[in-house]
């Protein structure tokens, strides 16, 4: 897969426009409540990660947003227009969706893409050029004339993603787009998606429970658990709300329980506003009001002659947030 940046410089307009505005969506299948009162907003040029374990309702949410299934309750606005059956075909021309790796096996890679290009109304000359470009981007140019039935899972994945981006959609839904890809192909795909978001102002909604590298691409996330949006917003903000203050982990020279307990008592007695916890790895985990408190804590421990081996700032990631939300809601993360 070759990551290429188009030489064309796009004109980015109205970056604050809401591309997706979903309000109070609910969907029930028989006795199973798949989605409960889900609301979400995604702005133009935003890369939004829709996270959640298997069965959380990610795919159902994508289907609802695209009006492939109808909500029992709530409404969806795409590009400022209410998504209805009558508007769906027009609005879908501006959207690209990849939800699986199922492509037409009796057609070649090129034929699969040409079929999609015609459905999205690409003009004849543009169609051929764009199909060649996408085959190149996805690293499938050398297999363009091979039937998709002969492809590996990773190649099918590339083809499925390729057809979703073929018509340069303003809004792109990708469901586990890196599944089945080797690390290099996965990194190149993420890099290309970053190009699309940053250079072309494409709005991206990426459903996944694979968190590696996600934070680089998706600065905003929503956590779906059991059909409910448990948290939604910028990753930094969500992390800061969940773990406020500054966190450090201190290893002492000796790891005896008695020493750790004494150090914890010392810190709690000496410094107001500090919470201290002994972790299973026999380190002290401190939550400080802010980073400036770190120096005072270290000085206090040194003055009391506690042997400090290391002081390491603790940073929380999207992965920590994911597991924290999954565990607090009783869901087992996939």
């Amino acid at each position, binding site marked *: 897969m070759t990551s290429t940046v188009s030489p064309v410089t796009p004109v980015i307009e109205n970056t604050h426009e809401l591309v997706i505005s979903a309000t109070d969506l609910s969907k029930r299948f028989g006795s199973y409540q798949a989605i409960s009162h889900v609301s979400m907003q995604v702005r133009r040029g935003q890369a939004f990660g829709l996270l959640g374990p298997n069965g959380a309702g990610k795919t159902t949410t994508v289907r609802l947003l695209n009006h*492939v299934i109808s909500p029992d309750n709530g409404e969806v606005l795409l590009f400022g227009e209410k998504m209805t059956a009558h508007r769906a*075909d027009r609005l879908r021309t501006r959207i690209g969706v990849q939800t699986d790796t199922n492509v037409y096996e009796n057609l070649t890679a090129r034929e699969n893409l040409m079929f999609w290009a015609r459905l999205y*109304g690409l003009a004849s000359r543009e169609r051929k050029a764009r199909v060649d470009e996408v085959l190149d981007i996805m690293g499938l140019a050398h297999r363009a004339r091979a039937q998709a039935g002969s492809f590996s899972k990773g190649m099918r994945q590339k083809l499925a993603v390729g057809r979703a981006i073929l018509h340069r959609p303003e809004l792109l839904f990708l469901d586990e787009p890196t599944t089945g890809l080797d690390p290099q192909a996965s990194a190149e795909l993420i890099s290309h998606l970053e190009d699309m978001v940053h250079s072309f102002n494409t709005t991206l909604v990426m459903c996944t429970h694979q968190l590696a590298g996600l934070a680089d691409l998706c600065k905003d996330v929503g956590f779906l658990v059991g059909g409910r949006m448990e948290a939604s917003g910028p990753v930094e903000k969500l992390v800061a709300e969940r773990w406020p203050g500054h966190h450090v982990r201190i290893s002492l020279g000796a790891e005896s329980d008695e020493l750790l307990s004494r150090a914890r008592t010392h810190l709690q007695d000496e410094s107001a506003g500090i919470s201290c916890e002994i972790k299973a790895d026999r380190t002290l985990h401190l939550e400080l009001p802010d980073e400036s408190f770190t120096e005072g804590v270290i000085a206090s421990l040194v003055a009391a002659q506690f042997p400090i081996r290391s002081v390491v700032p603790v940073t929380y990631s999207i992965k920590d947030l994911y597991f924290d939300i999954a565990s607090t809601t009783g869901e087992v993360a996939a």
Partner: protein
Amino acid sequence: MNFQRVLTVAHKDLVEVVRNKQAMFPMLVIPVGLAVMIPFGIIVMGSDPTMPTSAFGLSGLIDQLPKGILPPDLSESQKMVYAFTVYFMAPVFLLIPSMSATVIGSSSFVGEKERRTIEGLLYTPVTDRELVLAKIIASLVPAIVITWGSFGAYVFIVDTFASPVIGEHYFPTANWYALMFLVVPLLAFLTVALIVAVSGRATSSQGAQGVSFLVVMPMILLTMGQTTGIMLFSTTVALVFAAVLVVVDVVVFYAVAGIFNRERILTKLL
């Protein structure tokens, strides 16, 4: 309705069918049997004066034909050959497109569901009506092409083996043109639309084929009976019958598109 999208989906389906030898085989074998082998056997054996027409059970049917419908001055064996080729084979050519269409049409939606390609298609700008029409066209075109191809083969057989018996080139008659170029496409559209509707609600290709057969056969049998009668009357009657089929086709198409349900296809059948 965006016809480019309709033709794009139909073309894709046709390419898939042509490349699927397992689907092509029964579509070609049945017409060859019905339009070539059977008439060939009956004409060759029926024209043999030593073979009584009663051997094929046709003498009774010939007796039931309206008086004056067969050309005068034909011998018994000539009557049998003429009646068989002009009147009794007509309904068979209504059966061919329906049977061919069943093979493709019954898997039109359920086949995509089984191969799990339908979801991607449902996210595209293709509307319900466009999708239903595309699936109908994708089944209709090969069904009609096969029927017309069978008709060409049938004309050749009649011309080669039956015309010498009769003593002149008498086939195809005017009614056959009305049948092949009006009634067959219109009736095929109707049956394909019903089969596609079944396919949209079936859970497997085998189930769709079985139900399609049950849905279509009574209608085919009814039409076959009527067609025999139409072939006995004038071209005008055949044209009126075709006009009625046009109306029925339009009504059925809108009804089938109306009951098409993306949500059901995605949530009940995958």
